[in-house]
C-alpha cells in the first residue's frame, strides 16, 4: 500500500483549487518540474491533509475564492497560526496561478515543462470545450430549450 507518510524526495505542494481544470493543469505543471503534488478541492479538504500527521507539506498553493467553510485567506490564516514553516502562495486568477506556478518551477533544478501562457491557454481550451458540450447536451435533452 502506498504510504501517506513518505516524506523523502521532492518538496510537496498542496494545490487547493475548486475549479477542477485549473487544479488539474496547475498540478500537472508542478509535477512536471519535479514537485510531489497533493490536490485539494477546497479549504476543508486542505485542512484534512494539513492535519494528517503522516503528510508533510512544504508549500500551499491556493485559490482565493472557494466554497466551503473558509476561503484562501482563511486557509492562509489557519496555516500561519497552526503550521509555521509552510510557504503560502495565494493566486486569485488563472493567469496569476500560472505565473506563480512558473516561479515555483524556476526554484527547482528541473526545467519548467512549458511557458505559463500555455497553462492559461490549456485551461481556457478545456473550459471552452466543456461549455460547448454542456450546451449541446442541454439542447439534446430539451429540444428548443435555450
Amino acid at each position, binding site marked *: 500500500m*502506498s504510504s501517506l507518510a513518505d516524506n523523502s524526495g521532492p518538496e510537496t505542494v498542496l494545490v487547493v483549487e475548486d475549479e*477542477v481544470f485549473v487544479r488539474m493543469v496547475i498540478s*500537472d505543471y508542478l509535477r512536471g518540474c519535479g514537485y510531489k503534488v497533493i490536490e485539494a*478541492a477546497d479549504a476543508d479538504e486542505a485542512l484534512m491533509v494539513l492535519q494528517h500527521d503522516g503528510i508533510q507539506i512544504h508549500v500551499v498553493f491556493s485559490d482565493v475564492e472557494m466554497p466551503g467553510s473558509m476561503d484562501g485567506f482563511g486557509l492562509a490564516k489557519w496555516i500561519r497560526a497552526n503550521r509555521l514553516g509552510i510557504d503560502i502562495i495565494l493566486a486569485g486568477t488563472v493567469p496569476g496561478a500560472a505565473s506563480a506556478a512558473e516561479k515555483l518551477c524556476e526554484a527547482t533544478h528541473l526545467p519548467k*515543462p512549458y511557458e505559463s501562457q*500555455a497553462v492559461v491557454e490549456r485551461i481556457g*481550451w478545456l473550459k471552452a*470545450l*466543456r461549455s460547448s458540450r454542456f450546451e449541446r447536451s442541454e439542447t439534446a435533452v430539451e429540444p428548443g430549450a435555450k
Partner: protein
Amino acid sequence: MITASPADEPAAKQAVVLVVEDEVLVRLMLADELREHGYVVVEAASGDEAVNLLRGGVHVGLVVTDVRMPGNIDGVGLARFIRGEHPDIKIIMVSGHMTSPEAVNFVDGFLSKPYDLKLLVRNIELILARSSGMDPVE
C-alpha cells in the same frame, strides 16, 4: 488530442486513470499508488467534477469511482453518463455500501470498501490489458 498530461500521449501501459472520490485522503492514497505504478492520474473530488473533465475533452482510459458522493451526480449516475457519452472508457466502481443492481450494467469491475489497493491496481491492469488486447503485466 487533450490528454491528462501536457507531455506526449501516454504509452498504452500508462493509461490515464480518472479517480473520482470525495474523501481527500482516500483519493490521495489511491492516486499515489496508481502514479507509483506508472499511470497518469487525474483526480476528481465529485461526480460533477468528473463530468466536467470528460466534457472538457480530458482523454481517460479508465475511471475508478466511489458510489456515494455529494453533488448532482453520484457514482451510478456518473457510470450511466460515461456509458452513454464515452462507451470506450472502462469503469471500476468502489463502495462501502451495497449499490443498485442497475450499476452492474454500467461497470467493468466492482470492489467493496475497504479494498486492497494492490487488488484494485491488479484489476485496473487486467481490464486495460483486456481492452487493448495486450497481455496483462506480470
